[in-house]
């Protein structure tokens, strides 16, 4: 028997085709099977890579490891390290669980949690504004959960945190003078006001007074923040700028507004009557006409404010899309 004979026999067309067909139809994984296998193997690969990196970090930390010249680590040592890491991770998860329980509104670690959130905020103004809105939404969710549970202490803590974060965030947005950040922030706070108004309706009777006061105060602060941020130039479409925003014209919201206990956001697109608190008139909600000179007195003067374009001034001074209110 020679290799040539084997090759001739194996080269038999019919035999080869039958084996090919068998492999194709009987021995091939379907797409779902392949996907499952790939996902599991790659998940293992990623975990393995993480362990390798952690192991490498530990190797660097141990100063005496390289002194004997035996740099390579035995599989047993690697396994020991991996087990240590897993034990540490388990401990960390346990501690994190306990910490999470204490970090709820009014809890001992709540302020620490807020601090951690704050220091991990992004630096880009628009990203930071969106991250702050996320934080505010979390505070509202906490307040809502606490209010539904009748825990007025937790609700008050969450709402107090909401007010503080909003004050800081609005100051940051004003200081950054970033139109995207301002637009996002103003819109987000407008939504928050609606959430807060809805929250009052869900407050249980036994804690109604305390929580309602806190919510009203949060609405008031939200409206103030919207007022402050409102005058930052926004990236609005060039056409139809006079009607953009609605409340800024004073025709819909400002003109129809009557003295109300609390404020409603200036940018609300539907300034129809609400079952709850309605906005008070805002000083800047007075209509501005193209002939109106720039520099209308504002309720909260800001040093970094971009001057509004006037009919006499060239339009290139501000953002191209900005239109006078």
């Amino acid at each position, binding site marked *: 028997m020679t290799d040539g004979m084997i090759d001739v026999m194996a080269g038999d067309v019919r035999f080869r085709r039958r084996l090919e067909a068998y492999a194709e139809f009987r021995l091939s994984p379907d797409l779902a099977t392949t996907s499952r296998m790939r996902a599991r*193997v790659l998940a293992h690969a990623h975990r393995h890579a993480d362990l390798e990196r952690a192991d490498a970090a530990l190797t660097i930390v141990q100063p005496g490891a390289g002194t004997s010249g035996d740099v390579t680590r035995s599989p047993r040592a690697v396994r020991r390290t991996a087990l240590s890491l897993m034990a540490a991770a388990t401990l960390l998860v346990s501690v994190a669980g306990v910490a999470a329980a204490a970090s709820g509104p009014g809890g001992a670690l709540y302020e620490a949690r807020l601090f951690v959130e704050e220091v991990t905020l992004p630096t880009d103004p628009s990203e930071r504004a969106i991250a702050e809105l996320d934080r505010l939404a979390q505070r509202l969710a906490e307040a809502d959960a606490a209010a539904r549970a009748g825990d007025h202490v937790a609700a008050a803590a969450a709402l107090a945190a909401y007010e503080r974060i909003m004050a800081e965030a609005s100051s940051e947005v004003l200081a950054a003078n970033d139109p995207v950040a301002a637009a996002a922030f103003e819109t987000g706070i407008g939504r928050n006001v609606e959430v807060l108004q809805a929250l009052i309706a869900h407050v249980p009777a036994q804690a109604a007074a305390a929580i309602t006061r806190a919510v009203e105060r949060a609405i008031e602060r939200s409206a103030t923040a919207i007022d402050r941020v409102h005058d930052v130039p926004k990236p609005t479409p060039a056409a139809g700028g006079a009607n953009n925003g609605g409340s800024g014209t004073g025709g819909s919201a400002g003109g129809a507004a009557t003295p109300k206990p609390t404020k409603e956001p200036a940018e609300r697109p539907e300034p129809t009557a609400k079952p709850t608190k309605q906005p008070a008139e805002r000083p800047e909600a007075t209509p501005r006409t193209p002939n109106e000179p720039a520099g209308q007195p504002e309720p909260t003067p800001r040093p970094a404010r971009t001057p509004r374009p006037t009919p006499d001034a060239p339009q290139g001074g501000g953002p191209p899309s900005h239109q006078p209110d």
Partner: protein
Amino acid sequence: MTLDETAIERLVQEARVGDAWAFGLLFDHYHLPVYRYIASRVHRPSDAEDLTQLVFVKALEALPRYEARGIPFGGWLFRLARNCVIDHVRTRHDHLDLEAATQHAGRDAGPDEVTVHRQELDEVAAALAALTDEQRDAIALRFFGGLSAREAAVVMGKQEGTIRGLQFRAIAAMRRQLRIDESTTTGGDDAASDGRRVGR
């Protein structure tokens, strides 16, 4: 996916230092022949799936100890696959006998399968099941795994000539069982290249 030996070695080096993406490419390149080899050696498709997954996980963990000293990565991977299959058969007493092959053959008959004559596929399964364990191993490595005779010899821990002998006897037995007339032999194809075409 087509990768040459240089690209595979580079991916292996990257995977050794914890590059999961590189290992994913290696999986993409080898999973089909490995799966086919395993599926031809075990009873259930679910076992083939589990074992294929296990082979790659073992490969990942053993990768730091892998050294390409005469053994290409593919051969090394198939050696892992063969060991997994042997362990599986030994511990679960799961081997592909004639009855099991028929059951195996009877599953999942789709419309495509009907068009290529399901009965012919059943006959191939039965012919494979009638081989000795070593003959079936050699055929599976050569034709479904796509290995050369030399690579199959490395995987099975035998001489290359021994593998060719096993292959010769296996093919002859299968041809008899499949009633394939030798007069249809073309004689122009190379066995190794045929094996690769089926496997890949």
